[in-house]
């Protein structure tokens, strides 16, 4: 494992670099006729959302599994996927307005797609705050329920542009829109690169969470042992 991880980091770095080159260079993705070069934000904006939603569905699966089996590993996977998913959805929400400003003339509009994406982001930020600030033993169960609720909102984000009139363009996959095959190739390449990157970040974060939990357990054990020593005959408790 100690050798595999650095190799994967290097390969993912190369893939990310190549995907960025393809996204920015006219040799990779052709320049869009109406919007010009600013349309290249698309190659980061859309894969970020797809990666985030993929991670939220992993969170959904892990949450369901945790509720059924009470497996601590599933709880860690749920936490990690939600955290990394929030990072990717943040990228989507930041790059969106930067793209909208030169194209629509506004940074933000409260239409269905944008608002529903913001709501999903807020749900998962709340999920992370619950995990961070609640010390109750019931927290993983509450968080799992919240994760399931959040994931159920994700399809609404996708279908919002089908059901309602919005300013947002139609989807490039699943019908509704069309795209140059070279653009699609670069889009999928960037999604692959982002997915590999997300996998590696999740991997590191998973090990960190396992270590943190082991340390917390060790602290609790030490406190318990100190308490037991204090209660032994011959030890006197001092006030204050």
């Amino acid at each position, binding site marked *: 494992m100690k050798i595999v991880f650095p190799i994967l980091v290097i390969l993912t770095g190369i893939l990310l670099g190549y995907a*960025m080159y393809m996204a*920015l260079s006219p040799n990779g993705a052709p320049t869009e006729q109406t*919007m*010009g*070069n*600013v349309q*290249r*934000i698309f190659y*980061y*904006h859309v894969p*970020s959302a797809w990666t985030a939603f993929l991670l939220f569905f992993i969170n959904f699966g892990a949450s369901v599994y945790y509720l059924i089996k009470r497996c601590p590993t599933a709880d860690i996977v749920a936490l990690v996927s939600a955290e990394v998913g929030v*990072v990717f959805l*943040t*990228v989507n929400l*930041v*790059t969106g307005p*930067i*793209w909208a*400003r*030169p194209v629509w003339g506004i940074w933000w509009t409260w239409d269905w797609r944008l608002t529903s994406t913001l709501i999903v982001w807020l749900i998962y930020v709340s999920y992370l705050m619950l995990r961070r600030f609640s010390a109750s033993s019931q927290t993983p169960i509450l968080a799992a329920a919240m994760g399931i609720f959040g994931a159920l909102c994700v399809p609404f984000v996708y279908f919002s542009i089908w059901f309602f009139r919005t300013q947002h363009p139609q989807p490039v996959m699943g019908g509704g829109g069309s795209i140059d095959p070279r653009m699609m190739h670069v889009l999928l390449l960037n999604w692959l690169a982002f997915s590999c*990157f997300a996998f590696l*970040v999740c991997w*590191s*974060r998973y090990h*960190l969470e396992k*270590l*943190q939990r082991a*340390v917390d357990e*060790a*602290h609790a054990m*030490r406190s318990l042992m100190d308490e037991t020593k204090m209660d032994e005959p011959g030890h006197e408790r001092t006030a204050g």
Partner: protein
Amino acid sequence: MTTNPYLFAAYAATWIIHIVYLATIASRYARVKREIDELKK
């Protein structure tokens, strides 16, 4: 009107967000490592 500054801003923002998040992971690793060292003592 040139739109390249927006393109640059979007790509830069993406990597700044990821780098900041990776930095928080690295700092949490360092803190956990310190805690492990303290426990070993």
